[in-house]
């Protein structure tokens, strides 16, 4: 069952209703949210998704924003941040279960219902302290649920473990298998190693995330990444995704033919002019807003990110709805990202 099914008009109709209900829910349940909306003179009804009131994603670093009583808090998720500020995201049991289920439904679109043998392009030491994972550790662990017979491609020092990769491919390389990792780790520690040692990744399905910033020096952009993985390692099933802890469980997934991210049925994006906040049409880059019906325990259902993006088209790609790209961080925004913990640790 795919979660990439709704054409834009149908999605807009369902989202505006569900998200309007969430605005009312969070207004009733979260005092700081109520106060922010009151101060902005926000109305009670909304005609379209782009009219919904957004919160800057940064606000989750400054304010305790939750819509559940303290005794129903089941998990507190934190994001990494280079200035020491972290977002705090509060989940109750229902929200935690929903996010896992919807993330599962999203990745099964490209993986199918079976758990595949999984090569994790990361190091096991990431999960050393099981009481306190980094955001990166939590991301890897969340994705590990969708695989089996896990093998770590990096050793304890974060260096490629060529023998482990070879062993994995010998055991599982002749049938579909899953590769997961941060984009720059996949490039530096799997692509380069596979090319050098002539490893065949042809049956792999790669799911990767984390941004392209660290690969600028290598002159690798999304097209080049796909082209060279395919040419040099045989890996053709490649799916980048975009997501953030402040909207846990919602990921925007690259379609099979590459070049665009797609929104699952319960989520969407709006690109805004950073000067006027007006919604921009396809082809015009601006600030990316992400909406999702999953955040019920905290008001993260409409978030203005600090990332620039552009909608490429609507109902004209691999899957229905908007297709878009993330173009990088808004200049002068705080450098922030899960993958940054790696560099500090390394």
């Amino acid at each position, binding site marked *: 069952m795919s979660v990439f099914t709704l054409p834009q008009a149908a999605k807009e109709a369902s989202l505006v209703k569900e998200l309007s209900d969430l605005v009312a829910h969070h207004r009733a349940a979260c005092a700081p949210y109520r106060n922010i909306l009151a101060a902005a003179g926000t109305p009670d009804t909304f005609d379209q998704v782009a009219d919904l009131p957004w919160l800057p994603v940064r606000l989750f670093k400054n304010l305790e924003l939750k819509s559940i009583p303290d005794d129903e808090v089941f998990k507190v998720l934190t994001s990494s941040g280079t200035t020491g500020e972290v977002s705090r995201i509060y989940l109750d049991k229902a929200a935690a279960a929903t996010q896992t289920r919807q993330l*599962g439904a999203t990745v099964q679109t490209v993986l199918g219902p079976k*758990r595949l043998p999984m090569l994790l392009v990361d190091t096991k030491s990431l999960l050393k302290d099981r009481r306190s994972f980094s955001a990166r550790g939590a991301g890897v*662990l969340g994705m590990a649920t969708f695989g089996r017979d896990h093998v770590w491609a990096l050793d304890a020092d974060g260096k490629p473990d060529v023998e482990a990769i070879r062993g994995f491919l010998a055991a599982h390389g002749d049938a579909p298998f899953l590769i997961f990792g941060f984009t720059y780790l996949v490039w530096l520690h799997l692509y380069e190693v596979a090319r050098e040692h002539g490893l065949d990744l042809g049956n792999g399905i790669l799911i990767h995330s984390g941004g392209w910033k660290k690969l600028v020096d290598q002159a690798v952009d999304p097209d080049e990444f796909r082209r060279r993985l395919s040419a040099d390692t045989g890996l053709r099933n490649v799916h980048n995704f975009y997501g953030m802890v402040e909207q846990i469980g919602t990921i925007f997934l690259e379609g099979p033919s590459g070049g665009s991210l797609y929104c699952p049925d319960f989520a969407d994006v709006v690109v805004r002019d950073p000067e006027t906040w007006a919604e921009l049409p396809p082809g015009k880059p601006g600030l990316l807003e992400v909406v999702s019906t999953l955040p019920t325990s905290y008001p993260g259902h409409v978030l203005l990110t600090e990332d620039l993006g552009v909608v490429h088209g609507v109902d004209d790609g691999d899957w229905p709805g908007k297709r878009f790209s993330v173009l990088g961080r808004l200049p002068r925004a705080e450098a922030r990202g899960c993958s940054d913990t790696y560099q500090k640790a390394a």
Partner: protein
Amino acid sequence: MTELQRLRNAFRTSLDLAPDAPVDDLQYQDNAQWDSLAHMSLVAAIEDEFDIMIDTDDVINMSSFAEAVRILGKYGVTFDE
């Protein structure tokens, strides 16, 4: 050993519980042992014990001992006691 005892033992081993610990009422993440990391070991232990491959949705839905019993029924494991 009955199927139910085999399942109980798989829970005890993968969740680091005592050999005689009661497990029939366990719920996912209700105790410190059964966290998301242990869940992976638990699924692997159940798969090994009963020689089955559990689908993604069933891994996600396996939120209690009772639910594990129900899900394993789908894979042809029957629990008569």
